[in-house]
């Protein structure tokens, strides 16, 4: 029983440290990369993995203390589903606003983003067809 408890403690501590490390690496990458499309990579992968590690640690900790890990499972599923969706929407918004990029903007991107026919340099919300004239 005692060896089982110490093994659970070691596993929980390792998962906590791995999760904290990846969370920190994602934030450092978001600060230090050069343009927006590089900065998008760091949080959407590393931070999601870090939160996954911390949730696994919490799940093992909870199972060892006699409850089920349903809440952690819910949060993990929700985060792993919504993180790519929000990253996709953010990159679409950046392509639409023509955020400066090291690789340049392809013409295909301008055609696939909807409603962007006026090229703008500054990042401002475009209200081209917002309100009807009435």
């Amino acid at each position, binding site marked *: 029983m005692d060896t089982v408890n110490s093994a659970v403690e070691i596993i929980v501590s390792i998962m906590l440290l791995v999760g904290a490390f990846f969370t920190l690496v994602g934030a450092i990458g978001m*600060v230090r990369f050069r343009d927006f499309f590089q900065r998008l990579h760091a*949080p959407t992968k590393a*931070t999601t993995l870090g939160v996954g590690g911390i949730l696994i640690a919490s799940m093992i900790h909870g199972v060892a203390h006699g409850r089920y890990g349903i809440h952690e499972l819910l949060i993990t599923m929700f985060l792993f589903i919504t993180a790519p969706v929000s990253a996709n929407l953010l990159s679409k918004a950046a392509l639409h606003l023509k955020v400066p990029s090291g690789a340049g903007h392809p013409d295909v991107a301008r055609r696939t983003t909807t409603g962007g026919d006026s090229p703008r340099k500054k*990042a401002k919300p475009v209200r*081209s067809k917002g309100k009807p004239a009435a």
Partner: protein
Amino acid sequence: MIPLALDIATGAITVAMLLCGLRLLRGPEIPDRLLAIDTLYVNVVALVIVLGMRLGTELLFEAALIVAMLGFVSTVALARYLTRGDVIE
């Protein structure tokens, strides 16, 4: 061993949140600030879970779930506002 790991994890997540705040204040474009907010709420979810493990309570997982849902909805709304110029057409 677990309290030491919890302390280290809390410190690392706090430093990550401070770096997100730096990008939020300094970001040259609006999508940079939006990405900083997105990362900030994921870090808040991690910090709430670490706090729940430290306090030994089950009550904080609902708080983490609500923070995750509201953060996703706000990110989607702001990204659609930047793309379309309106949230709901």
